[in-house]
């Protein structure tokens, strides 16, 4: 019974899609008819999604359903891979980020990406955070120091590292490194934070810290997280997008989705019938 359900997922009807699009508050990012092919294989199938402003949206779904591909489409990380073909539109405000005349660095500046494992740059703690601002032309030492201090405070790392800002960032613990990466991303003043299973490599304590950070940060940023842990999605998300085999099956406020999923597949996934 379940097997057949997995093999042939019901497509959401057009009517359902319409309600998905309409039932949302202020939209910050709008995905329209997004199709992604990797090596000619259809990975994302006609995704339509509105990411609400200053909320946490969690993308959930079984492995290989295209969550990460979708997230990476949002800041054009597929650009350099010649085997990936992207069709469709992604609007930030009124701007289509896939339009021909849009510069990719300009788009990426708006999106702070937090990867699965922290990747600190091969330089000091200070330089890691200052890297982005320096790229965009901030040179004055005092100004940089203020930015670094402010962002490290925002991620709760300042007290831990303020006496050793000059030490190489690789010496920090994994949890600290991930918070440093977050601070580094925030320092370029993005509008979005994209997290690709950003806590899966961390211990429970660091995970909690990062989650708390997200809850504070959503006052200023729109946050999109790909996550494998349903409990995490339950704890922090305002909206849930459930994906299955490259399609967006269900999208809605997380309370509704968790307590009363509209779609059969969503229900089965949340029940743990498959993962």
């Amino acid at each position, binding site marked *: 019974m379940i097997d057949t359900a997995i093999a042939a997922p019901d497509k959401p009807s057009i009517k359902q899609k319409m309600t998905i699009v309409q039932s949302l508050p202020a939209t910050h990012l709008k995905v329209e008819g997004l199709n992604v092919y990797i090596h000619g294989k259809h990975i994302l199938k006609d995704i339509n999604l509105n990411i609400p402003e200053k909320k946490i949206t969690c993308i959930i779904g079984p492995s290989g359903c295209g969550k990460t591909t979708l997230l990476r489409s949002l*800041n054009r990380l597929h650009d350099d891979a*010649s085997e990936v073909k992207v069709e469709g539109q992604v609007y930030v405000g009124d701007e289509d980020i896939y339009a021909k005349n849009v510069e990719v*660095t*300009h788009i*990426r500046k708006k999106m702070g990406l937090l990867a699965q494992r922290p*990747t600190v*740059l091969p330089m000091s703690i200070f330089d890691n955070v200052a890297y982005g601002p320096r790229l*965009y032309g901030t040179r004055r030492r005092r100004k940089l120091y203020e930015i670094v201090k402010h962002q490290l405070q925002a991620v709760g790392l300042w007290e831990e590292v303020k006496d050793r800002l000059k030490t190489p960032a690789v010496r920090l613990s994994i949890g600290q490194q991930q918070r440093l990466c977050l601070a580094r991303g925030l320092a370029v003043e993005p509008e979005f934070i994209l997290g690709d299973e950003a806590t899966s490599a961390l211990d429970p304590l660091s995970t909690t810290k990062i989650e708390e950070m997200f809850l504070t940060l959503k006052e200023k940023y729109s946050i999109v997280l790909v996550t494998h842990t349903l409990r995490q999605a339950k704890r922090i998300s305002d909206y849930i997008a459930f994906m299955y085999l490259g399609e967006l099956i269900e999208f809605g406020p997380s309370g509704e989705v968790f307590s009363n999923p509209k779609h059969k597949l969503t229900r089965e996934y949340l029940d743990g019938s498959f993962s």
Partner: protein
Amino acid sequence: MKNLEEKIFKALMIFASVTILSVLLYILYVIISKGLPSLNWDMVSKIPSGGFYLGKEGGILNAILGSLILIAGSVLISMVISLPVALYINFVKRKESKFSNTLRFAFDILFGIPSIVYGAFGFMVMIYFGLQASLLGGIIAVSLLVIPIMVRSIDEVAVSVPQDLIEALKSLGATQYETLKVIVRQISPGITTAILLSIGRGIGDAATVLFTAGYSDSIPVSPMQPAATLPLAIFFQLSSPVEEVQNRAYAAALILTIIILILSFSTRYFGRKMSKSKL
């Protein structure tokens, strides 16, 4: 049974290590025991006098300086060529693209070509352009010898740069060039190793410079003049029938060994210092 296997392999590993170490020690012993008596201040501070075949007077300052200038020039030229190549095949092209792998294969072949072939090739090119044996010719020939080593050893570390790092940089809005700058920093220990290997291979090679740099008894002043090098100084002196001159060859070998030691240690030291302050 398992235990015996373990013991046999352990014994084999110890045997291999001891063999290679004793060979090295024996070489050092020969160089030192034969070279040290002939080594004096004149050797390193004077140019030869009385002809280098039979000459027992003077020193080999010409060859020391020649070798140092030659290797400095070659490392510089090959770095300017190798680093962009290694970056290109790893970060502009995809690491596993056909082009990159073809290039790697080509450099592996070049790596295996005997140095005398590079020397002969350099010589041929020089004749074509009507040039005589000169310091510049030697530098170019040694660069050709060293480039494959450099490309492949930088490539070795460049391959292991995590994709995550590149994506982290890109998502901060870094351009290709800005990304490459950080990557160079990331692989700087590998670059240090590449320089070390290149110095080791280039400074000790006699065949490449035999035709291209030539030999001269005077200190090189112009890149267009022939210049002496230590490996050739050893070679010529060793082929002399006079025992005293032969011993001077060992002294020259000792000097060459010491130079390589000093260069390795200082490269390592500066490499570490650089990565400490920047990493």
